[in-house]
């Protein structure tokens, strides 16, 4: 059984199509990267999957409560401590305080539990952000550019943590501007441009669709977009 199925998702803002009939499925434990140029519709797609935005048409087979949603900017209260944030969202999600303790353990934030979020490093703040998204133990975790604004060391730690989640069967769908990161960590890619889904498949598949002379994945991705008029 798929972890998530999206059928013909479309979103219209005024007279602009932000998404046009995007369909795909995500399997349990799979890591899916959504890549594309600016304005491609990556954040819109994640927001619809996460229940933050309603689609103009189309459907998602999961209720938003079954999906963990982690926005690009840490969506936590900077003046509250780590544990206070987790407790607050646990109560709003209707889960017990045991989930808070477990989440502190899983995210390695036990030592920082009483620290005020505004005093944490960018990496730890992102961990808290992800921890809130995981409180309900979702089958799918959506991450909007999870490693943006992190230094390489923090980025490596975050990815180690995210990939660790997949071993528990959690499917991860993330958007990124870093195509190298997508190639390295994703099992499947969704390439969006101007709201259209141009490619869905393994990174190697995208590489094969462009001129073989391009060995670098980023160059291959740019060529792929250019060949399709983007």
């Amino acid at each position, binding site marked *: 059984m798929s972890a998530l199925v999206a059928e013909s998702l479309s979103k219209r803002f005024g007279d602009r199509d932000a998404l046009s009939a995007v369909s795909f499925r995500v399997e349990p434990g799979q890591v899916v990267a959504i890549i594309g140029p600016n304005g491609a519709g990556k954040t819109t797609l994640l*927001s619809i999957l*996460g*229940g*933050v*935005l309603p689609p103009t048409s189309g459907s998602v087979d999961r209720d*938003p*409560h079954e999906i963990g*949603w982690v*926005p690009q*900017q*840490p*969506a*936590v*209260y*900077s003046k509250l401590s780590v544990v206070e944030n987790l407790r607050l*969202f646990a109560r*709003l*999600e209707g889960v017990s305080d045991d989930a808070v303790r477990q989440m502190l353990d899983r995210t390695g934030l036990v030592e920082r539990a009483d620290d005020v979020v505004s005093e944490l490093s960018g990496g730890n703040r992102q961990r808290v952000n992800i921890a*809130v998204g995981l409180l309900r133990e979702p089958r799918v975790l959506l991450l909007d550019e999870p490693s943006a604004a992190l230094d390489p060391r923090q980025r490596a730690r975050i990815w180690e943590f995210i990939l660790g989640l997949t071993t528990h069967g959690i499917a991860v769908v993330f958007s990124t501007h870093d195509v190298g990161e997508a190639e390295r960590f994703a099992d499947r890619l969704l390439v969006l441009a101007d709201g259209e889904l141009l490619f869905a498949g393994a990174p190697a598949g995208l590489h094969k669709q462009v001129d073989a002379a391009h060995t670098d994945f980023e160059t291959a991705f740019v060529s792929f977009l250019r060949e399709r008029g983007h």
Partner: protein
Amino acid sequence: MRWLLLKDLQILRRSPVLMLLLVAYSAAIAVMIGSATRETDAKPRVAFLNQIPADEDEFVVAGQRLKASRYADELFKSVDAVTVTTRAEAVEKVRDGDVLAAIIVPADTTQRLKAALALTGSPRAPTLEVIYNGADPLQARAVEATIKGRLADANQAISAELTKASAQYIDILLRGGGLGVLGADFNVLGLQRSEKIVADALDALPRDSPQRAGLEEVRRFARAAVENLDLAGPVLRSVGQPLKVQKQVINARTTPADRYYVAVALTLSALFVALLIGAGMLSLEREEHTFGRLARGLVTPLQLIAAKILLGTLVGLAVTTLMACGVAIFVPLELGRAPIWLPVLAVACIAFGATGVALGALAKDVRAASLIGVLISLPIAFLALIPPSAMSPALFDLVRIISAPFAFRPGLQAVDGALSGGSFGLPLVHLVALIAVYGVIGRQAAFRIR
């Protein structure tokens, strides 16, 4: 620093809404202050009822012909007199707010003035009746001050005449001459001539005459009178304040005006606290990026704005309750009425909080929300506190229309009514309507934030 300044100017230039708001705000404040200042020079409308019979308007004192209506002109220098024909009409006009006050000149004014000057016993000073509406203490105080000032001018004008009259009296008493008393003219001998006649009579009397002692006494009296002029006392006393005023207040407050100022202080504090908390805390959700997370089913937009309104209300109520307890040390507040004024204050706080939440949902961040909150609250509070007597009726109506969509004015009226034992039903209904309107605006704007 120069580059920082240029950068900030560039950012401002690219924030047309903020710039427009700042310009519009400055212009609106300037227009309001300008209008209020200009309108202060306008004459307040005052009903005038002259009950003096037409044939008694003129009277003669010490040979001087005085006209009572001339002194009324002094009153009209600073008021726009609306002539009425009966006392009931005057009272009705004051009660309805057509005029700010009514001045009634009783029918016996001329008689009393004449009596005061004619030395016919202990005179009762002529007393004008002034009726004003006491529902608004600021207005009542302003009207009272205007009328007091005009009466002082009228008194001064009469005083000038009385000074002349008293000088003539003194002259007649000293040197003799014609004097009118109770409509009849008498020839007064005069103290100097009286003394001389008595002295002549004494000289003519034999030294052992039994009448001599009595005449000696009369001469001593005449001499003393010439020297002291005590007989002019009643006239001189009346010179200071010939006209008295009897004040009557309709729609009177049952409590001192101090309580109105307490109501102003409490309402103003509640406005700022509840509005800024409501606006700031909602826009904080946006600034912390938590709005999207909350809005994906954790809470509904209505629950979210209700929570912020409640927060603003609780903090506003706590601050104003503490303030009321502190004020109660200096101003007698009926703490026993707290079960009435606290809920009314709470409703006002809810309305202020709802206004703040609507602003917070429209603003992009806490700073903008706070700035907009202050920019809107200050002029609205300012408008609500200008006494109507400082404005023309047209401007007052305009101010009422501008203030109507904001909660401060009805909030103040409700809190004032609850504190002073007056009525507060209508302002409360107004507040509830505003809570509903701002609640809907906040909810719709909250949907937009997602």
